[in-house]
């Protein structure tokens, strides 16, 4: 019989990347929404996006696989799925540009208000 997944230690260990990804994603969203310091919000963006990349990598993982490089001699080796890695490269570029943009806006806000903390900013409106 199939054991109940929630109680099976093996499955929890095997799916650890997925659990970590979900945990980091929710932490990242919470950081963006609740932290008072604008720089920390930008860091939260990075945490959240990184967790999604971790999720993509975990999907593409094949357990006995090696890096997806095919040498002329050895054709039949099992390799990890390279497609999510290409998607992640695009995602990293997007995340990096969004971070740069957010930091530029933060610098501009600092020039206006002199502070990086959101609650002080609200008082100064």
């Amino acid at each position, binding site marked *: 019989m199939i054991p109940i997944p929630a109680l099976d230690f093996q499955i929890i260990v095997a799916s650890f990347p997925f659990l970590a990804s979900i945990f980091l*994603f929710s932490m*990242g*969203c919470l950081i*963006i*929404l609740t932290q008072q310091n*604008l720089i920390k*919000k930008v860091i939260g*963006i990075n945490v*959240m*996006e990184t967790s*999604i990349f971790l*999720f*993509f990598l975990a*999907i593409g993982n094949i357990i006995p696989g090696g890096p997806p490089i095919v040498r002329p001699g050895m054709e039949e080796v099992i390799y990890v799925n390279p*497609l*999510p890695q290409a*998607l992640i490269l*695009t*995602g990293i570029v*997007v995340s990096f*540009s*969004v971070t740069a*943009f*957010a930091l530029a*806006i*933060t610098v*501009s*806000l600092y020039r*206006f*208000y002199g502070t990086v903390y959101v609650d002080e*900013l609200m008082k100064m409106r």
Partner: protein
Amino acid sequence: MVLFPLICAFLMPIMAYFKKEVCSYITLAITGIVFFIASYLAFVVIPGRSFVFHIGHWEAPWGIELVVDPLSALMISTITAFCFLIALFSIKTVRMEVPLDKTGWYYTAYLLLLTGMLGLMLTNDIFNMYVMVEITGICAVALVLARGTKEATEASLKYLLLAVIGSGFILFAIGFLYSVTGNLNLDYIAAELGLVKEYYPYLVWTAMGFFLVGFGIKAALFPLHLWLPDAHSSAPYASSALLSGLVVKVYIISLVRIFYQVFGPDMLTGTPMGTLILILSSMAIVGGSIFAYTQLDLKRRLAYSTVAQVGYIFLGLGLGTSWGLVAALLHVVIHAFMKVGLFMVAGTVYFQTGKKNVLYFSGLGRIMPVSMGAFTIASLSMIGIPLFGGFISKYALAQGSMEVEGYGFVALVVLSGLLNASYYLPIVWQAFFTEEKRETFHLDMVPLSMMAPLLAVTLGLVYLGVTPGRMMTMVENAASVLMFGP
């Protein structure tokens, strides 16, 4: 061919860097060319055929496809038409609001936004859709930021942070779909998902939910709309019109495409997702209108009105019937006309009199009759009075609600017409009927480049209200292709 606007938009930053005053006219020319290409494609597709273009000549599923099916054709013609008109409108307003050395960059962001929206509508590949979502999102934030004032900077940061959360959810959902199906092309995902759906019910529900939240943040569905009033009220007038009328809609259309093409129309009614969308959209309609009633700044009032109208579109989407989908698509197009017209009126009023507060609008009908006339027509259309465009979409929505026996929704649609009236008609009344000692009646002193798009949009609205035939066939084609397959 299809890639011409994309390439042109990338050449724009180079041209804009050298000559600052000419870039608005160059933008106008480029959007005009793109509009002609898009309408040609739309005419090709009207009989119901689709037109597929493979990037780099790699066939699907290895390559990315660009598909012009009826929905795409409808949306790209709408998008390019409005980008052209707003480019015409923005020649004067951008000079007024954006600092002079930044106008080149403003039009760069404008053309990149056009690129992103067109790519989003045309693509058939889910990861390309994500890339286009990001392009559109970042350029929209750049357009909000163009003024450089304190409010604009805060609003754009808020928009950026929330938009990034939305993109994160979308990317996560793409990851879910990829993990189950292994394809990235929308048609192939649909085929695989049909086979695999029974084994992973929770995962498919989670993916649908994440897509709804992600696109809902970007499209300002009710509890996720918090960035919209600040962003749309502190943006320059041209980009407010663009954002409110088009950008919010392309996200809804891509959500429609994902829900109907990938998941299948039975997913909406079979899962709690349809009920959830209905609840959220009803809250959006009522809440958006009530918030709009209390706003005094005209642009914030129009922004909350956008929240309510997005609620209408989601109501049509959540009904799950063919008429509901037709209503949603119709409202996307017609609301684009109405909102762009309203924001253009706001722009002309600001240009001539410098007024932004609704309380000061009294007697404006005497000195700006054309603008306030356009405002009246757009407001009557928003309320849903027959003979103007809004009636068509509200009628389709009521028809869709009656198909599902949801008479509460019919009452909601009618009630929301009254709520819409409560915050538009006072402006109209004040403009025309208050007794003020004004000068004699004369026409607006607003340059022709701002009047012409306003008149075009208003005339288009009246034309669609009186003879909606051709547009109805396009929309019905689009809806039937979505619901029942090509």
